[in-house]
């Protein structure tokens, strides 16, 4: 009973912390965007607008929900829940610091890879079940984007496993005497770009594309269901950043600097997320054909090349 209780309490704390992080990520992103675009950003709720995200959350819960007439009742209801839940649960396996907080599993990398994919499942179902054209196209685009970028994603992960010879995220961190970004820079590049596409953020935000598809898959969603998609998207962003940190930047290893490992881990994640924000402010959205070409003609050959180089170093030499 006692271990069960500890896990329960740890879970509650982890969920609360994650939600809080997401809330303030959104706030900081908006502030950063405001700063880059020479405007204020949120500045009404509280000093410097720091309560903006909390106000948004309360508003979204209390808001009237509009259920489009032609929706598919069950799928429309379940889709945002799938996205949010599947973006949250991999965090039970991510080694925050040196070991996972809640579940220490040997095949955790596979686990994270598989469950993270379900977030896209929810987006596609949400688009398809709304019974409206824009969400449908958003959902289809999301599916095609996921299908194209999952392969380079998987192949770059394979190269990491090849070097570490394990599926466990914890052991991958332990095996990084030098961060894998140095021996596998091409793999890192592929993983970073495929991850960027996986989160559906700005250069690759075709499923949402508010200037052509209105809001894409979440056009017909309102209130808390919309919030769930939103939350899922940001949680997914944190997940991809923490995977980048774990696989390529040495996780909680501080190497020379004497700091507690979870702090190092959080600083690294914050840095990666900052780069994601930076990219968002700087780049325009790509076209769909460019996206497909980019994945199939550039990322896949590059990830194969990376894999071949790593395996030659590993096996032949």
């Amino acid at each position, binding site marked *: 009973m006692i271990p*069960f209780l500890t*896990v*329960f309490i*740890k*879970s*509650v704390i982890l*969920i609360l912390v994650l939600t809080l992080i997401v809330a303030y990520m959104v706030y900081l992103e908006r502030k950063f965007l405001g700063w880059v675009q020479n405007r204020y950003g949120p500045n009404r709720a509280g000093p410097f607008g720091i309560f903006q995200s909390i106000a948004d959350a309360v508003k979204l*819960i*209390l*808001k*009237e929900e*509009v259920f*489009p007439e*032609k929706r598919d009742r069950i799928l429309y209801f379940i889709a945002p*829940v799938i996205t949010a*839940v599947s973006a949250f*649960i991999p965090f*039970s*396996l991510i080694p925050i610091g040196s070991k996972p907080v809640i*579940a*220490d*599993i040997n095949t955790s990398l*596979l686990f994270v890879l598989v469950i993270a994919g379900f977030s896209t499942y929810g987006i596609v179902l949400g688009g398809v079940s*709304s*019974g*409206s*054209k*824009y*969400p449908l196209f958003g959902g289809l685009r999301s*599916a*095609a984007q996921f*299908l*194209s970028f*999952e*392969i380079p994603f*998987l*192949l770059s*992960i*394979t*190269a990491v*496993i090849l070097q570490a*010879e*394990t*599926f466990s995220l914890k052991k991958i961190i332990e095996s990084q005497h030098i961060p894998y970004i140095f021996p596998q820079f091409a793999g890192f590049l592929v993983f970073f770009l495929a991850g960027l596409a996986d989160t559906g953020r700005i250069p690759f935000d075709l499923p949402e594309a508010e200037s052509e598809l*209105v809001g894409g898959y979440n056009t*017909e969603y309102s209130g*808390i*269901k919309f919030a*769930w998609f939103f939350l899922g998207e940001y949680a997914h962003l944190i997940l991809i950043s923490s995977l980048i940190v774990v696989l390529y930047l040495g996780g909680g290893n501080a190497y020379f600097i004497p700091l507690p490992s979870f702090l190092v881990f959080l600083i690294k994640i914050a840095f990666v997320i900052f780069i994601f924000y930076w990219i968002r402010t700087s780049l325009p959205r790509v076209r769909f*054909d460019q996206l*497909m*070409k980019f994945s*199939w*003609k550039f990322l*896949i050959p590059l990830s*194969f090349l990376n*894999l071949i180089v790593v395996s030659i170093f*590993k*096996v*032949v030499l």
Partner: protein
Amino acid sequence: MGYTGFFVFFLLVLFIGLLLVVLPKILAPKVSEEYKLDPYECGEIPVTEEAWSRYNVRFYLLALAFVIFEVEGVFLLLWALNPRGLGIAGFIEITIFVVILFLGWIYMLAKGVIKWE
């Protein structure tokens, strides 16, 4: 504390997720208006009865290619667990496997599966 911890976390997240989706049913106001629940088409009355239209067959081909390369990726993952133990022989075997499937990739590009006009 392997999968037990995971299950506790999963059930908790699922519970919160479902609870908050149901919550607005109690808290949120409800006002009904004509046209409010119509599918959104920038304020117009929807042109067609159904949102569905037959879409491009390329989506299907993409999914097919995805499944095939995913299978390949899974085998590569397996090999990556023990590359040194399997030695040069294992490396050659996996290379043949990858090269054969690479032909599929070339064919795909040559046939213009990913060309979107």
